[in-house]
């Protein structure tokens, strides 16, 4: 594609933006690629014009300021011609290209015309983030039941609420900004069902006390929940959703310590929309086919293994943010800066030239300390908000587990007990669970649990990370011939 760059960054969320800013400051030419139409990722979503004010910024201090500074740095990089910003460019594959990498994307930035684009660079940074982790329950496939992140994306990005009486459920602090955001938009948030107990942090107080910003954030959410009179039910889960063509009610149940519903505690409440999330699953689609080593994270996910400079096991390949373990935007920003600092150091080493303003040792030490503190917090968060071990007891044989292929819990369990399947790959071969459009992105973690597979959940290798048209692939051939010439 003509213009050569030193570094390609895939993912323009907090981690990718930070990496871009540090790489530009170090004098590199950078390509920043994202499927979205703006920078910011899922976390920093600019509200649409008609909804400029009503959605409160949950993290007004460090979040907004960091976001503004990174935006400015990237805009300046573009003006100077040092940053090539490729928005609306979903990446469908990344391959080795000699000593470097080839990033295959589809340009959807222009109406109607889809065009294949291949970017090449000696170094690649993957910062593709994460998405809501889901556990199935009877009725979760009914319209009106969304992921918590889906409710948030519609609200922050589209200025719309998916219902007027909403129940939220699952586990983790992300349910709180979703609840307060909806309430500020005028939605009645009937209940927030948090599967974890209220006292979990008492067993892990250190990380919270070492991260006063997180403590303050928690206090702010507590105040906002109280102001909007949103009831939060600890040790409670949404164990079923009911309705004909749309959800009309949900069943809540108090949970025993193992996560099974306490008999007799079930109650039904009316709702026209539901948001569910059980933490997040890192988006590893581009890293796995490159052979990047993975390690287990405390939340049960496999994540990219990185050294203290965010280098993966593959030379020239770096990773930052949620793909290295779910930990939130401030951690992602610190890791993005750190990863780009490593790129600068490694280029200087390889070329024998000092990196033009070399990242000061003191700044690197501060970034590493920040990453360590946030990682400690994320570890505690995972321990306080685990998947309830007995969540499978909510299911009936007829509960849909794989939404795409409509494979039921009965079929998945039969694959395990009658045919000896012991991981999600074998279940997939026997039942088609995970074989549909989403390629197991939604049901994978749940099938992993239901198959009683040992170890962390590792997604299947997907050679094509996002669907592309044959026309776009045909473009790619011409493009490659042009590049070869």
């Amino acid at each position, binding site marked *: 594609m003509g213009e050569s760059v030193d570094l390609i960054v895939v993912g323009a969320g907090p981690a990718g933006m930070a990496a871009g800013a540090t790489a530009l400051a170090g004098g590199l030419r950078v390509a920043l690629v994202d*499927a979205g*139409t703006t920078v910011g990722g*899922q976390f920093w979503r*600019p*509200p*649409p*014009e*008609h*909804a400029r004010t009503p959605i409160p910024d949950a993290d007004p201090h460090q979040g907004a300021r960091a976001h503004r500074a990174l935006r400015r740095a990237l805009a300046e990089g573009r003006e100077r011609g040092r940053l090539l910003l490729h928005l609306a460019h979903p990446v469908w594959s990344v391959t080795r290209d000699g000593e470097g990498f080839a990033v295959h994307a589809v340009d959807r930035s222009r*109406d*109607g015309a*889809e065009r294949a684009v291949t970017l090449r660079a000696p170094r690649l940074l993957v910062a593709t983030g994460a*998405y*809501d982790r889901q556990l199935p329950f009877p009725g979760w*496939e009914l*319209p*009106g*039941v*969304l*992921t918590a*992140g*889906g*409710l*948030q*994306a*519609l609200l922050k*990005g*589209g*200025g*719309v*609420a*998916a*219902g007027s009486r909403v129940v939220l459920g699952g586990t983790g602090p992300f349910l709180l900004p979703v609840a307060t955001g909806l309430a500020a938009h005028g939605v009645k948030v009937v209940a927030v069902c948090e599967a974890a107990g209220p006292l979990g942090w008492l067993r892990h107080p250190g990380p919270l006390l070492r991260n006063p910003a997180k403590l303050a954030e928690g206090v702010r959410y507590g105040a906002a929940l109280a102001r909007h009179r949103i009831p939060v039910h600890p040790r409670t889960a949404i164990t079923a959703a009911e309705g004909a*063509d*749309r959800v009309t009610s949900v069943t809540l149940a108090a949970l025993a310590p193992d996560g099974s519903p306490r008999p007799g505690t079930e109650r039904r409440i009316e709702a026209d*929309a539901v948001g569910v999330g059980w933490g997040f699953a890192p988006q590893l689609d581009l890293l796995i086919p490159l052979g990047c080593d993975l390690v287990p994270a405390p939340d049960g996910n496999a994540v990219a293994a990185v050294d203290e400079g965010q280098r993966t096991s593959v030379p020239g390949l770096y990773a930052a943010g949620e793909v290295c373990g779910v930990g939130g935007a401030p951690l992602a920003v610190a890791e993005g800066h750190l990863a780009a600092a490593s790129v600068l150091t490694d280029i200087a080493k390889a070329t024998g030239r000092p990196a033009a303003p070399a990242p000061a040792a003191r700044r690197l030490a501060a970034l590493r300390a920040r990453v360590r503190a946030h990682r400690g917090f994320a570890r505690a968060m995972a321990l306080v908000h685990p998947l309830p071990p007995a969540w499978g007891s909510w299911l009936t044989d007829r509960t849909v587990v794989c*939404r*795409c*292929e*409509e494979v039921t819990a009965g079929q998945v369990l039969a694959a395990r007990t009658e045919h000896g399947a012991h991981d999600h790959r074998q279940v997939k071969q026997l039942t088609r669970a995970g074989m*549909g*459009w*989403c390629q197991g*992105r*939604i049901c994978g973690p749940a099938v992993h649990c239901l198959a009683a597979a040992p170890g962390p959940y590792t997604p299947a290798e997907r050679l094509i990370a*996002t*669907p592309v*048209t044959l026309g776009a692939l045909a473009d790619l051939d011409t493009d490659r011939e042009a590049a070869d010439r």
Partner: protein
Amino acid sequence: MNPVNRILVDGEPLGFAEGQTVAAALVAAGRVAWRTTRTGGRPRGIFCGIGVCFDCLVTVDGATGRRACLVPARPGMTVTTREDGDG
């Protein structure tokens, strides 16, 4: 709302606000389902909202299998729903 901001959904005009996706425009009009599953014939629409689950598939200006939650609504865009599971 700018009156020029209309898409056609199954032949019917649907307003949208600048910056909304096709899915957000449908949700704003009270619709959370617009597709039927291939096997069970069940209604589906918006679920993950960020392009992961493929529940919200529609045809946009003749291109099948597009995720409504990712496609920005543009004036005059033609959207067809009610396809089967293969989008």
